[in-house]
């Protein structure tokens, strides 16, 4: 239970912002919607406990209307969907990822390739 202060602080900030217009973003109501206990959420937000499982972080992102990948990255968690994608084509997907790494592709390179692929589909 080492905690992750950055993740906790970000969740509290986002929840506080929502709470100004919607009071049901209170600690306990939000915890109930996410499916975790209020005590656990309290300690995650204060950076005492590690972030919850990826499924709960995805639910948090959905409720707080922010990018799922941003929260997962802050929490050092991987979207379980990615695991499924790799499992669906284990050799080809692993080869693609290793090649990208070995060629030293930057985030910008990867984003450009993604945009091109989306345009062609």
């Amino acid at each position, binding site marked *: 239970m080492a905690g992750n202060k950055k993740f906790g602080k970000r969740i509290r900030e986002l929840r506080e912002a929502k709470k100004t*217009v919607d*009071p049901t973003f*209170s*600690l306990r109501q939000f915890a109930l919607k996410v499916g*975790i206990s*209020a*005590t656990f959420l*309290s*300690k995650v937000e204060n950076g005492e406990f590690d972030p919850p499982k990826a499924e709960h972080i995805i639910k948090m992102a959905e409720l707080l209307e922010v990018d799922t990948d941003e929260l997962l990255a802050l929490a050092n968690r991987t979207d379980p969907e990615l695991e499924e994608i790799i499992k669906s084509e284990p050799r080809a997907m692993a080869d693609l990822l290793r090649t990208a790494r070995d060629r030293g592709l930057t985030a910008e390179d990867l984003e450009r390739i993604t945009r091109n692929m989306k345009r062609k589909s």
Partner: protein
Amino acid sequence: MARIHNFVPRKSIEADTLALIADYERKYGRTVTPPVPVEEILEAHLGLAYDFDDLPKLVNDPEALGGLWFRSREVKFDQSLDPTVFPSKLGRYRFTVAHETGHWELHRDMFLSSEGQVAMFEGEESPVICRSNDKSQLEWQADCFAGNLLMPKGMVYAQWEAMRGSREPYIAIGEIADLKARWGLGEDERPTVDVARQMAPVFQVSAQAMQIRLIELRLIRTRVPEPGLFP
């Protein structure tokens, strides 16, 4: 903690709770119906930093259930009250939330001015710690505030009428005597009667808190009324 004595009449406490609910309704454009959203009022409307923690350990007091830090606008509840873990504690938890709201609303200014003088010498803020059986004057006021906030008179009357068809009080003397005999209770013990147990879930309070409020509002009578006092 500095010792503070003040007198706040019951009527004034009731007016404060109704004003607080009205402010909340105006701010968020919502109509409050039972159960009164006490967490939302304290956390969102009044804007206190709100947490669950191992409070007895934190404040070195084995009986601590709620703690309020006025200067830093923080409120903490003991994790043993967390209803997402212990659903049976919901009523007790909500009463503690409403009780801390009472301290915030009734005692904040007085405490901060007194605390400010203490802080000049000590630097560190001492929280107000609330225990289950602390019955000082300030605690009585916060309890009174909690009862009125969780169970506003108008809402209780409306619910009573919806459940019983009229505002006629219930004379509970027979039922209380039966319950005492069945459970072998002492003279000074007061078991909760059926109507209080039925109404408590509507307000998400304990049956005991509901009964105290119904007796206060004279909807439950525990003594034989004088003839002609009500039709």
